[in-house]
């Protein structure tokens, strides 16, 4: 009808979401170009919590970098601990006793549950429901108490060591964990009744925020985001490490690619993690939790090494370039949320603000891990 009216630039306005905004889970900023409430263009702006992890990796020893890995993604710190120690162990050729590997897997899965629980709560909070967040925190507190009993910290663990774990688990932990698994089995149906089946939530998630497998591949999305698009990719199964081959567990995959699919993937993962924990407790061998011969000062041979683990948000990779000294020459941390967020701009086009928030929440972002 009219050229002017069809030019979107004339009817749009820019809305700045963040850097302090309740939906961005921290300090992400998203520049939205809106036409009414429809998003014409979304541009995430990063770097508000850039903490120089990679620089710090270059000027401290291998062991001294451990605490940093717990602060990359503070919600599943142990996965990142795990990825880092695995990479260094691969580089330095350190073996790990089996008991330690089991403990690692158990605690990592426990940490994954706590991360997914927090995501569940925060996601429903994004969608306007406050109560499920606090129910999720209930469960999480029990879990944090368990982990605190082992690792001494509630959130930013620094528990793994090259060649093992810091200290052994005790019977209290085992009985507590069994109780927790039992409790979670009754709580999960409650979450499904309260949240998943809720018509309001279903209307907000179903058929909203599609991500195609091709989009995942082009942007390198991993973890629940990829699995919610029907990509059967999980580092634990695909590229087995630690003692994961010993466990029977399923990789939940939902082919639809909408927000609901990603939601269901994570809910199912909680269940699978419970299975792994149970099996781990059953199979837990006795023995030492530290390898005997771990050199005090690590000097991996020259070259570069890569190790990836399945963190709560996707594949976390560590690329370690060693020059033969006791500090890494270059330490690249490949964080899953970085790739997962990068597809947001394309996936959010044409959505309403409210739907974009449902989409962003379903990516499960932890900003410090993106900004590193």
């Amino acid at each position: 009808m009219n050229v002017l009216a069809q030019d979107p630039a004339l009817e749009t306005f820019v809305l700045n979401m963040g850097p302090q905004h309740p939906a961005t889970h921290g300090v992400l900023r998203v520049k939205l170009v809106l036409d009414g409430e429809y998003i014409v263009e979304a541009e995430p702006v990063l770097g508000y919590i850039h903490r120089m992890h990679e620089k710090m990796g270059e000027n401290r020893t291998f062991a001294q970098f451990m605490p940093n890995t717990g602060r990359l993604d503070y919600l599943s710190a142990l996965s990142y601990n795990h990825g880092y120690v695995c990479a260094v162990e691969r580089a330095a050729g350190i073996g790990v006793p089996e008991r330690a590997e089991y403990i690692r897997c158990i605690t990592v899965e426990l940490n994954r549950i706590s991360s997914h629980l927090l995501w569940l709560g925060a996601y429903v909070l994004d969608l306007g429901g406050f109560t499920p967040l606090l129910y999720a925190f209930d469960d999480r507190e029990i879990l944090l108490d368990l982990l605190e009993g082992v690792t001494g910290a509630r959130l930013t663990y620094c528990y793994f060591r090259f060649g093992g774990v810091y200290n052994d688990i005790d019977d209290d932990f085992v009985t507590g964990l069994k109780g927790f698994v039992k409790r979670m089995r009754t709580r999960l149906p409650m979450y499904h009744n309260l949240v998943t089946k809720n018509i309001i939530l279903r209307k907000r998630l179903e058929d909203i925020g599609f991500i195609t497998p091709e989009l995942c591949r082009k942007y390198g999305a991993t973890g629940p985001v990829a699995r919610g698009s029907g990509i059967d990719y999980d580092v634990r199964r695909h590229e087995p490490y630690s003692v994961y081959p010993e466990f029977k567990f399923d990789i939940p995959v939902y082919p639809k690619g909408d927000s609901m699919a990603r939601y269901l993937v994570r809910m199912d993962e909680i269940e699978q993690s419970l299975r792994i924990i149970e099996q781990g407790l059953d199979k837990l061998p006795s023995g030492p939790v530290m390898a005997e011969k771990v050199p005090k000062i690590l000097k991996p041979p020259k070259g570069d090494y890569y190790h990836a683990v399945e963190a709560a948000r996707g594949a976390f990779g560590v690329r370690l370039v060693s020059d033969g000294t006791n500090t890494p020459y270059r330490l690249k941390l490949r964080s899953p949320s970085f790739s997962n967020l990068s597809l947001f701009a394309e996936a959010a086009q044409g959505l309403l603000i409210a739907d974009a928030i449902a989409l962003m929440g379903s990516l499960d972002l932890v900003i410090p891990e993106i900004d590193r």
Partner: protein
Amino acid sequence: MSGYFRDLLDGTKSLAVGLGITFKYMVGPVITLQYPHQTLPMQPRFRGHIDLVRDPETGTDRCIVCGMCQKTCPSGCITVAGDKVEGVKKKALTLYTLDFTKCSLCGLCVEVCPADAITFSKDYNLAGRSREAYVFDLKKRLEERKG
């Protein structure tokens, strides 16, 4: 059309179920720990800031001033100083400061200590009005704890 009514019915049912769940919790007990009135016992492995261990035999610290903790600390928050004491093999500790505001509670110092002279304290509820209050003189703290 039947889909419309099924949706309506299912939706209403799901809403009622949700209300039922929250009502059950509402009449149930609260789980709040009323902090200043009630407290949690800290777990044995809880990591507060580090503290010097008192040697039950000598009644003083066990530190041998080897400086390992200072060297190992990723954030450089430990400063140790000691004097050579005649006759005894180990050095005597004169100063042990911990800048807790830089600490990341990684526990590397405790792990590396050859003399088991430091341990985690159970101070979990620190809060104060100045930043300097958290640069601890651990030797002094040890002495104060005696009294």
